Structures are given as C-alpha cells and as structure tokens.
C-alpha cells in the first residue's frame, strides 16, 4: 500500500519496508481507517498490511510493513497515541508472515 501522492521515488515492487510493526487494536469498523489515516496524514510510508481478528473478536492483530528508517521512533509514538491501539512493537519476524502471504498472492 502506497501513499502515492506523497512518494518522490518509486520503490522496488518487492519492497516490504524496512521494519515490521505489530499492533494489537480494538476491533471495530473504523480502526483500519484510523491506522491508514495516520500513515497518510503524517506521510509515513506503508508498504504492506495484514489484519486479522484475535480471540473473541474484540481485538485485532495488525502487521505493518513500513519504510521509515529515520522516523520509526516518531511513527511508533504516533501509533501509541491512537485510542484504539492497545499495543505497538517492532516485530522482525513479521517479515516472514508477509513473505508467506506474498507467496499466496503470487
């Protein structure tokens, strides 16, 4: 997923970002808009996204492939401010999950 209006260069099509961020969020119909809206509003680069309900469905897990080397601290601080975001962590293993999804999508 691209903030295409804000891009200055075209990333390689295989890019999954420079870091994988794992979120636990409240599961309701607007939560994806809040996350994606933050990326658009702050012009953070989002390369990949996966979202699944967890447990009884009141929470969701989200995996974000982001391309933000210099601003990753700022990105995480902004994500933590969202009311619907319950947990934020960098998860290097998330890349494997994205690779598996990519294989499926290929």
């Amino acid at each position, binding site marked *: 997923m691209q903030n295409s209006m804000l891009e200055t260069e075209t990333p390689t099509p295989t890019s999954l970002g420079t870091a994988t961020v794992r979120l636990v969020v409240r599961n309701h*119909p*607007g939560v994806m*808009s809040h996350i994606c*809206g933050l990326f658009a509003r702050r012009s953070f680069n989002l390369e990949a996204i996966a979202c699944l309900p967890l447990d009884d469905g009141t929470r969701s897990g989200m995996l974000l492939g982001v391309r933000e080397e210099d601003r990753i*601290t*700022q990105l995480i601080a902004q994500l*933590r401010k969202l009311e619907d975001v319950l947990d934020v962590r960098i998860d290097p293993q998330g890349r494997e999950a994205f690779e598996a999804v990519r294989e499926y999508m290929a």
Partner: protein
Amino acid sequence: MFQLTGAELIMRLLERQGITIIPGIPGGANLPMYDALRSSKIRHVLARHEQGAGFMAQGMARATGRAAVCFGTSGPGATNLITAIADAKLDSIPIVAITGQVPQAMIGTDAFQEIDTYGLTIPITKHNYLVRSAAELLDVIPDAFRVATSGRPGPVVVDVPKDVQNARIELEDFPEPGKADAPPPVRDEEVAHAATMINSARRPVLFIGAGIIASEASEILRTIAGRTSIPVVSTLLGLGAMPDDHPLYLGMLGMHGARSTNMILEESDLLIAAGVRFDDRATGKAAEFCPNAKILHIDIDPSELGKIKQPTLGITGDVGSVLRALAPRLHSTQHSEWLDRVNELRGAHPLAMPGAEDLLQPYGIVRQAAELIPDNAIITTDVGQHQMWTAQAFPFSWPRQWQTSGGLGTMGFGLPAAIGAALAMPDRMAVCFSGDGSLLMNIQELATAAEEDVNVKVILMNNAHLGLVRQQQELFYGRRFHASKFHAEPDFAAIARGFGVAAYDLGESTDPRESMAHALAESGPCLINVPITREENVYPMVPPGAANRDMIEGESYAKQYA
C-alpha cells in the same frame, strides 16, 4: 430501573459532565437531541453557522480549561463544524462535538444530508466515535470527555445516528462522568538530569508555550524564572503565561517576535522548551534554530519529543508537575553576565511600536484599547496582521486571558470565540480584535451576540485588504498585488446595527479615544470600526522558510531607530 431514549441519555450524561451551555444548530438528523434538550437544564445557544458554534465551544474551553460541547446535524452541519474541530486539534483545545447522523439503516445509501462524519474527522480529532446503539452511549460519552481532557487536550467527535437517538434503553444507574487520566508519574532520574543541565548552563532560555497554560503551570514558571534568573520567551499561544512587564520576559519569539528575542535565542547554550511543539512560525528554519543550545524538552505528548528537534533530554510529562519537581533542585543564580548580554541586545534591538500613541494606527489601537479594557477581560483575535499587532503589543498578564487561532490560523475564529468566552464567564468582557477580511468570515455570529446580549466588543482594524497577504505580495512577490484588496468596502458599523449590535466608527469620530471609551463602557455587544492605513506592514518579519536570524524590518521600523 428507568427508561430513557438515547437522546435523553446524552443530555443526562452531559449534565453529569457539568455541561451547562451548548452552542449548536438543529437539523433533521439531530432533532431527537434537540427535543431532549428542551427538558434539560442545559442552556442552548443557537449559532448562525456550525463553524460559529464550534468556535463558541472553543471560546468556552479556552476560557475555562474545561471541555466544552457543540451540536451540529448530519451532512452540512458536520462539514461546517470541521474547521473549528481541526482548529481545536492544532491548538490542543478540549471540545466534544456531537453530531446527528442519518439512521443506521440508511448509512451508505447517500441518504439526504448523509456524509461520512466519522471518516472525515479521523485526521482532525484526538479520537472519534460512530455510536451504534443507545447502550454504547453509556461508555462513549464519558470516554469522549476523558479523551478530550487527558494528557494533551484535543477535540473529540461523537456521531450519533438518528435511530440511536430514538432508541429506548433501560438502566439502573448512570455511569460515572468521564475525567482526565492522571498524568504520567514524574521520574526522579529525569528531573535530576534536567536540574544538572539547567544548573550548569551559562546562557539558558526558557521557551514556553500553550502547555504551560493547559497544565496551569504559570505560577511555578514565574517562581523558577525568578529564582534562576532565566529569561523567558513565549510562543503565540503561550502569551499570558508570563506577565508582560516581568523583567525576565522577552515576549514572543519567531516570525513576528522582537529581533532581540530571536538574537538572544541564537546565543543561548540551553533551551528549556516547556509545553511547546517547535512550530515553524516560532522556530523559523528548524535546522538553524538555537544552533548553540542543548535542548531540554518537556511535553505531555511523547510524539512531540524529537518530532522537529532532537532534544538532549526529552521528558514526557505534565509540564507543571515536572517544573514543580524541578524547582527545589535548581540553584538560585544571578546569571549576571548572560542577563547583561540579554539586556544589551534588548536595548539595541527592541520591538518598535510606531504609532503606539495614536488611536488610529495599529499599535495605538491595541495599546490605547488595553488601557480602557478591564484587566480581567478575555482578548481574542482573528487571523492576520491585526492578530500579530495584538500579540506583539497587548500587555497580557494572566493565563487564559488570550485566545487566538495559532496552529490552523483560522480567519473567522475571533468573534465566535469571544462569544463563547463571554458565555462561559458572563461577569467579564470579551474583546475581539479583528480585521475586515477575517470578520466577514463569521460575521453572522453578530446575530448570536445580539440575541444572547453577550458583553463582546469587536475592535475592527479596517484596511480593506487581506493585509498579511498584501504584505507577503509586497515583500516576497515583487509587489505583484493580486486578490488581496477588497474593492467593495462594506459599512461595518451599519452592518452591526443591522444585526442589532451597537456600533461606532472612529473614522467619523471627533474624539476617537472618547468614542472608544464610551463603546467599551457600555454593556452588551458592540463593534468599533477603526480605519487604518492600507499599506501598513507587520514588522519585524522572518520570511517564510528562513532562519529567525534573517528577520527583515520595514521602512517605518527602520525610521524609528535611524
């Protein structure tokens, strides 16, 4: 057990939050709420445009520090509120906007007056809700107030479909009112580190902003500045936190600050940034801001630390709590060498106020009016040259005295904000300094002012221009003036009278000072039109994008010191 409709429940929950006044406008999708409002203790103030209602709520919130509420209907009601909500987000003002929405069964059908209020308000709120059942209101309404007032304050939108307003709900008891979360604990090791930085600095400056006012930290700030002899500079929104006549107070920094203030920052070796966000109008080119200073940044919002400038030490916390913990660790110092240098620069490069004695010139209007306005009056402005002249020249002395649209820079803010301030504090006067461009953007609220008979005085600096646009075209666009002059010049005094508001035109007065004194002495709303020179500029000025050291000063400014 008792039964209520969703709309009745909203009113009861708002009453329990301590809400006594709600500005707003009814329409199809929020009529159940207005029906419930009729039998509520809450007083409704009928605005004439939802943006006016939103700014009235802001005026109440800025005056009191407590969250205020406004109402709008679906569709255009919600879109009209958006500017006021976005303005509250950028200036961290706690408001709760409650909008009607089409019934849930019709959401997504492009129903009459349907708009995706939830989607539209995501980027301009701290948080927002689309309420899906009356039972959800029990959580959402208190939570909206908790979110609006916790940590860094801000706006919250609650969108309520009409069927949720009409639904009946049984309950045994009301939930507890929402209140602000406790601020994060102050960490001793951070305070100790900060104290070491401050105690070992030789040329420190306190750089304060709206966070000082939001956290009610003016007292402790004054104590610390006094004990440590550290000079204080303020952002636009921090005005009032330090009294204008305090010997250590250097006024506003940045784009229209005194040259000496920006020069002093240039020489500082420690910037104590307290409740500020390093806005570009304050810092100029951020990379060249305070090039010789370590930065100690204290803010309640962790995402502000390092967003623009990487601090040497960043402390996430309530700025008042942190300053109170810091105070006993700070050495009592004179900083005589540094203050000598500060005073030398202040003497050499003060803020010039040409015409300060002349009631028909911008600085004169502000200074002369300030002498006539009661000390406890609330001062609002619109956006433009008059705003900067007021910020530079008005002798602010207490926090929450000053309301202006800082971050969003919204023309049209001043009049409805003043009405809100006067509604919240009916024993005080609210004075709106405005310009002819700005005032027209929400002039319909003169009708509200007349209807509510609020003690609001509009002092209109009338130059028949978008003055700050004209100024930029003169200075940075080779004098290629375009679309900045108003060729039709409305008779503002006649317009005010047409709304039922008393009006004075100082251009036609034989004794302008007497006329202004008379206007300010009467109760109720009035408008004072003051024609000013059309080509006057605000100086000094940092060109947009330039470093603060590269201020420019105009001819009239230079003449003062030639």
